[in-house]
C-alpha cells in the first residue's frame, strides 16, 4: 500500500515539474535584453542609499571602518541640505564576510529598499558576486577598495586604486631605489595571485628578477617556512600582498628571523593605519606601504576629514585609504547626481565623466570611460607612532588603466 502511494506521489511530483517547466517559459538568452531594472524610490523628500559591508565574520574588522566613514559622509551631506534637496537615508546591511550573502543583500537593497546607489564591498570575491546583481538591475555600486584591476562594469564606480595607481608605482619606486630582485608573498586568493602575475610581467620587462612566490591560505599564521625561504633567497625586497591576520604572524616571524627594513624592505599593499595598530609598530617600523592616502597626507581637506572622523568616532581611531575612498565615493555620487539633475542611473553615469572632488588625498577626477578615478600614488613608511608618512608620490593624479593597456609589458596579461 505505502509503496503504491509513494509511486503515485513521485508521479505527481514529476507531473508538477513538467507543469512548472511549461508554465515558466520566459525570455531566452538569445532574446534582446529587455529588463528595465528597478528604479530608485525618490518620491518623498528623502532618498535611500544602501551600505553593504561585512559587520560580522573575518572581514568585519576592516569593513566596519569603511561603514563608519560612509556614515560620516552621509551626515555631512545631510547637514549641507542633502542631494537635490532630498535628505539621504542610509540602509545598512551585513554582508557577513560571505560572498553569496553579499549578492543576496545587494538584491534586497535594490529591489526591496529601492536605493539610489549602494556603497560597499571589500574583497574582490564579494565584488564579483554582486556585479551580476547590479548589472541585471541596472543599479549603481561604489566600490571603495584598491583591487587587482582587469574589470570594468558599467554599473560599478571604482573609487579605490587599480593596479597602475598602486602596484605599478610601488614597483617603480623599488626600481628607482636600485632593487634588482623581489620575493612575492601573498594570501591565497584572487587579488594577490593577479597582482603577482602583473609584478612578474613588470619584472621581466624591467630587468628585475622574481626569486620566489609563495601563498598562504587566508587567515594562516604559519610563516616559518616562507620566511626561511625569503631569507635564504637574499632578495633585495619583498612584495607583500598578505591580507588581514596573516600579516601579524608574517611580520613577527620576519623580525625574529633577523630581517629588518634596512636589510630587506617589505612593500605591503594591504596594510593601512588600522592594520598597523593590530600588527604592532615594533614589527613594522620603517617598512614600506603603497597607497593613495595616509592619515598624514597634507592638505586642508584631509585635516577636516581626520578631525571630523575623530570627533565622531574617537581620537584614537586612525583614518586609512579604503575609508577615505569610501568617503570620497559618497561625495562623488552627490556631485554626479547634482550634475545629472536626477537620480536616474543612466543619466548619473553619463554625467559622471570629468567630475572632480577636492578629496582628503588631493584632487580626484572621475574617468568617464572606465568609471575609475584618477588618484595620486603614494609610497609611505611606517613610523614609530603607528602612522605612515609619505616618502614618495607620483606628483600628479595617475589616470586609471584597469587593463594596463598603456603598458607594453602588460600586453599578454588580459
Amino acid at each position, binding site marked *: 500500500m505505502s509503496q503504491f502511494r509513494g509511486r503515485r506521489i513521485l508521479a505527481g511530483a514529476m507531473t508538477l*515539474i513538467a507543469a512548472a517547466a511549461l508554465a515558466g517559459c520566459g525570455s*531566452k*538568452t538569445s532574446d534582446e535584453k529587455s529588463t528595465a531594472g528597478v528604479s530608485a524610490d525618490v518620491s518623498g523628500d528623502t532618498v535611500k542609499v544602501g551600505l553593504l559591508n561585512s559587520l*560580522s565574520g573575518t572581514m568585519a574588522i576592516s569593513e566596519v571602518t569603511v561603514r563608519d566613514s560612509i556614515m560620516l559622509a552621509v551626515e555631512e551631506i545631510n547637514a549641507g541640505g542633502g542631494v537635490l534637496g532630498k535628505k539621504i537615508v542610509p540602509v545598512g546591511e*551585513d554582508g557577513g564576510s560571505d*560572498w553569496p550573502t553579499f549578492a543576496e543583500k545587494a538584491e534586497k537593497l535594490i529591489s526591496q529598499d529601492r536605493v539610489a546607489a549602494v556603497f560597499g564591498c571589500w574583497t574582490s570575491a564579494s565584488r564579483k558576486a554582486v556585479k551580476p546583481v547590479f548589472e541585471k538591475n541596472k543599479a549603481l555600486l561604489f566600490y571603495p577598495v584598491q583591487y587587482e584591476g582587469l574589470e570594468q562594469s558599467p554599473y560599478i564606480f571604482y573609487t579605490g586604486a587599480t593596479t597602475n595607481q598602486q602596484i605599478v608605482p610601488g614597483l617603480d619606486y623599488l626600481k628607482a631605489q636600485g632593487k634588482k630582485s623581489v620575493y612575492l608573498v601573498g594570501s591565497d586568493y584572487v587579488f594577490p595571485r593577479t597582482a603577482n602575475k602583473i609584478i612578474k610581467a613588470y619584472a621581466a620587462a624591467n630587468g628585475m628578477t622574481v626569486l620566489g612566490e609563495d*601563498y598562504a591560505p587566508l587567515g594562516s599564521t604559519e610563516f616559518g617556512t616562507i620566511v626561511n625561504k625569503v631569507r635564504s633567497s637574499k632578495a633585495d625586497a619583498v612584495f607583500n600582498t598578505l591580507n588581514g591576520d596573516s600579516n601579524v604572524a608574517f611580520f613577527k616571524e620576519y623580525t625574529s628571523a633577523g630581517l629588518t627594513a634596512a636589510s630587506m624592505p617589505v612593500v605591503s599593499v594591504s596594510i593601512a593605519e588600522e592594520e598597523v595598530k593590530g600588527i604592532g609598530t615594533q614589527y613594522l617600523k620603517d617598512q614600506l606601504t603603497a597607497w593613495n592616502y595616509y592619515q598624514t597626507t597634507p592638505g586642508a581637506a584631509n585635516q577636516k576629514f581626520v578631525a571630523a572622523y575623530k570627533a565622531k568616532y574617537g581620537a584614537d581611531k586612525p583614518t586609512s585609504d579604503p575609508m577615505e575612498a569610501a568617503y570620497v565615493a559618497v561625495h562623488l555620487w552627490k556631485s554626479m547626481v547634482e550634475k545629472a539633475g536626477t537620480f536616474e542611473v543612466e543619466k548619473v553615469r553619463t554625467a559622471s565623466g570629468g567630475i572632480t572632488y577636492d578629496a582628503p588625498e588631493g584632487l580626484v577626477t572621475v574617468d568617464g570611460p572606465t568609471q575609475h578615478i584618477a588618484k595620486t600614488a603614494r609610497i609611505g613608511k611606517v613610523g614609530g607612532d603607528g602612522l605612515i608618512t609619505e616618502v614618495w608620490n607620483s606628483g600628479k593624479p595617475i589616470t586609471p588603466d584597469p587593463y594596463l593597456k598603456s603598458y607594453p609589458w602588460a600586453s599578454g596579461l*588580459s
Partner: protein
Amino acid sequence: MTAAPLVRTDPAAVAGTPPGGRRGRRFDGPARTAVGFALGAALLFAVAPLALSDFRLSLLAKYLCVAMVGVGIGIAWGRGGMLTLGQGVFFGLGGYAMAMHLKLADAGPGELPDFMQLYGQLDELPLWWRPFASPWIALPATVLLPMVVAFGLGSLVFRRRVRGAYFAILSQALAAAMVILLVGQQGTTGGTNGLTDIQGFFGYDLDDPVNQRMVYFIIAASLLALLALARQLFRSRYGELLVAVRDGEERVRFLGYDPAGVKLVGYVIAAGMAGLAGALFVPAVGIISPALIGIVPSIEFVIGVAVGGRATLLGPVLGAVAVAWARTALSERFPGTWTYLQGLLFVLVVAFLPGGLASLWVLARQRRSDPAGARWWRRSRPVEPAENRTEVSAA
C-alpha cells in the same frame, strides 16, 4: 577500542517517532503522508509564489536547496549515525559541474569563460573542462560525480570501521582539502571568486524573473521528489537496517549483515542529494565558490538538520529553511547584532528541544493527552534519537 557495551535502545526513539509505541501508525500512515505531500506541494507551488515577491521567492529557492542537502544529512546522520561534516564537498561538486556547463554555454562554442581569459592566460579549454560542455555529461555528473567520490571515500572508511568523531573529522578534512585545491587553481576554477555571473540556464535568460520562477519550481519539485525518496527509504527494509547499524553496529554484524555496505549506501545517497542541491543552487543564486563548500557551510548544513530534528523526515527540511530564513530575517532587522541572536537561537533549541523543531508537534500532542504534564521539556527527552548512545558505542 574497548568493546563498549551496546546500550539498550528504545525502538520508538530509534526511528525518531513519538514514544508510546506502535510507531505511531495511526498518525503516520500512508494517507497521512499523502495529505502531507499534498499540503507541501500546495504550499510550495501555490501559496509561496503568490504570497512572496520575486526577491523573496528567489531566497526561498536558495533555502530549499539547503533543505535538499538536509534531507541527505537526515539519512546519513539522523538514520545512519554518520555525522558528516563534509557535505559541502558534494554540494560543491554538483554546483561546480553545473556552473562549468552553464559558463561554457554562456561563453559559446569554442570560447573560453570570462574568468579564464582574465586569470588563466590559457589559449584553449583545459582538458578536464571539456566534457562539461555537453549537457548530457554535465547534468548526470552533478549527481553521479558526488556519488562516485562518496563511494570511493566511503569504501575506504567504513570497511576500516572508522566511526564517530573520526569519521566526522575525516569528512571535514575533505572539505578543507577541496577548498584549498579550488583556490589554488585560480586560472581554471576561478579561485576564491568561484564561478560567478552565470547568465543563462539551458537557453533561458536567468535575469528574467519568469525564468527565475521556473528555477524555483524545479527546485521545489526536486525537494518533494527527494522527500518521497527518503520516505520510501525510511520505510524499506534497508531503512530499518540503517537505523539498526546506527544503534548497534556490532549486533548487526553478528546477525550476518555487512554494516559497512549499509552505511556506504546511505552515505552515497546523501552525497547524491547534496550534489543535486548544489546543481540547482547555481541557477537560483548565480554563483558557486569555495566559500560555499568549505568547513563552515558544511557545519551550517548540519546545524540546520540538528535544529529541525535529524531523525525525522521533515525535520531536516524545516530546520534548514528555518535556520536560513532566521539568518536572513535577523540580519536584515539587526545588521549589527544578528549573529548573537542566531547563536542564542541555536542554544535554546539544543537546550530545550534536543529532538529539534520536528519534536514540537509531539510535545504538543503529549500535552494534550497529559494535561497535568508539567515540565514539558523533560518530556521531550525520550524523543531524542539515540545519537549520544551511538557515539558511546562507537567510541
